């Protein structure tokens, strides 16, 4: 291909890019542009519509709005101190206004949740047992009591269904070690063993 043809081709593709951009702009106009801009930033880690790929980053889709709002505020005022919160979210949440936090929480709450993914069935069955019945011998109450029978979350108690197991495991560990400040959960999980954590997180990821 001659260079002149190559240049002609590159210019020929510009209207195509422009057309896509125009279509995208039209779609974005329907929603609040400030919210759209912010959601695009979130999407870099949490995925389009809040369904993430890497388990370092939690799914946000269908998370309860009060929980999301509380966490964003805790990142912003730096009261949620687990290592990943510091490394990633303190910075990201710092410029968010109170109004934007509310909008973001509402936006993610109404997205379609991530689908559960299967795994070790025996482990999942053990996890289901922990989730639904707790561990009476260790005085650990059933998770379902607060998080809902289907782990769908209730108000400020977060949705856990379909969440990445490694993310949930890490949260249980940082709450247990009090790196993440969560007084109610700290009391609940302080006697939970690592094996029990692995089971219950595998179950939650599967539903």
């Amino acid at each position, binding site marked *: 291909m001659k*260079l002149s043809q*190559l*240049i002609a081709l*590159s210019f020929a593709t*510009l209207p195509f*890019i422009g057309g*896509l*951009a125009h*279509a*995208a*702009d039209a*779609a*974005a106009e329907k*929603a609040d542009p400030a919210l*759209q801009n912010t*959601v*695009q*930033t979130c*999407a*870099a*880690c949490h995925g*389009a*519509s809040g369904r993430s*790929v*890497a*388990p*370092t980053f939690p799914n946000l889709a269908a998370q309860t709005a009060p929980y999301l709002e509380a966490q964003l505020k805790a990142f912003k005022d730096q009261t949620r101190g687990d290592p990943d919160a*510091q*490394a*990633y979210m*303190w*910075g*990201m949440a*710092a*410029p968010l206004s109170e109004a934007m936090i509310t909008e973001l929480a509402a936006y993610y709450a*109404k*997205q*379609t949740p991530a689908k559960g993914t299967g795994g070790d069935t025996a482990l999942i069955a053990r996890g289901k047992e922990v989730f639904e019945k707790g561990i009476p011998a260790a005085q650990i109450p059933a998770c379902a009591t607060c998080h809902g029978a289907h782990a769908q979350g209730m108000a400020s108690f977060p949705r856990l269904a379909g969440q990445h197991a*490694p993310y949930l495991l*890490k949260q249980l560990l940082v709450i247990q070690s009090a790196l993440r400040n969560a007084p109610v959960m700290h009391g609940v999980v302080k006697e939970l063993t690592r094996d029990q954590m692995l089971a219950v997180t595998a179950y939650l990821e599967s539903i």
Partner: protein
Amino acid sequence: MRYTYSLGGPWALPVLTILCFAAVDARAVPSFARQTGMACAACHTVFPELTPFGREFKLNGYVMDNIKQITGIDAANRSTLSLNSIPPLSVMLQVSYTHTGAALPDSAATGALAKDGDVLFPQQASIFYAGKIADNLGAFMQLTYDGAADHFGFDNTDIRYARHFNLGAEGDGAKVHTLIVGVTLNNNPTIQDAWNTTPAWGFPYSGSNTAPSPITSTRIDSGGGGLGQNVAGLGVYAWYDSSVYAELSLYTAAIVGGAHPLDSTQAQVAHGVLPYWRLAYEHRWDRNSLEVGTYGIVAKQHPGNGLPLTGIVDQYTDAAVDAQYQFIGEDHLFTVLTTYINEKQKLDASFANALAQNQSNTLKTFKLMGEYYYQRTIGGALGYFDITGSTDALLYAPAPVGGSANGSPASSGITAEVNYLPWLNTKLQLQYTHYDKFNGTSNNYDGSGRNASNNDTTYVLAWINF
């Protein structure tokens, strides 16, 4: 450009040009961390290697921010200014020690040897402006002091404009597609790339600039043939759904220093417009990401260096494939990088002026590297490199240390390194490079009695960014 020691005779220019091969420019900049409020680990596994999020940040134009902006709007409420209240400046310092298998010849006293064991303080010291300039506009700009050359120079620069779009309807579970469209203005083909397989950001991320390095490299490879910092390029790219990347850039000669307008005193001057292309596909799952791609450039060049910049030219066509795999776990991080570059050389100008023996040559480079880190703190890498190509007794002529006795550019070996990062922005490195072959063969490769293993290099580096 780093000239480490002088060699006389007609081979001086090619040999010195070739010594620049080892000049690796690879960076990570704390000003991005200041701008985003995120730790290095968000964008880098271990600097300068990018994570998937780092790629998003770069392709979005370096503009994600969370610090106070100085803003301006016009009557239509359009943003006319959005400037970081703190300038996104960073400093990089490299201090290094180099020891080669056998001492190098003295640059002036015939038969004598130079001191073996060379400390550079600094090897390089750089100042960066790296961050947002305005809405959708960001820059990565580097000024570097080179300790061996003893001067400040304009180093890698990439200024980009990017727009992000969501395609498709929100909600109801409908798939939303993302598209980033951008423009890059830069001075080194592949500096704009988001993967660590391409030369500008490839392995090794740092190496000695005083040890001998192979006689040649492909045009697209790090600084080889004088493209890096000697061209200006404008490109357009699209990044669709964080999976498909396409770019077309056009470069032209823009040599820093020397005679301007460019004339016969300059060497390896790009002729006309050099098209560069890049296509890549990335798949992400769980903690893994896998990229496969292709890139290349068609570079027409005047040999210059005494020859006028008119008439017939040399044409280098580089076509390359690459692949990258990353696993980013909580404790364990793995990376595999590979690239294969195939260069076809049509050396009409060099041949006509008795600078090349053949009118057509080939040159091929293969690189493969594997890396492991534990908790981003301690780790190591092992890399293999292999350069092969046509034998050409004029291009690759005999000369002490830097030349080739048999006219072959064949060089191969391994680079092994151990790295310790006491902090995320400080890397302490011990690197060893072993050559099986150097400039054609293992024993007496230069015709002056030097063996490939005499160039084996021990390199100790302290690399600090703040």
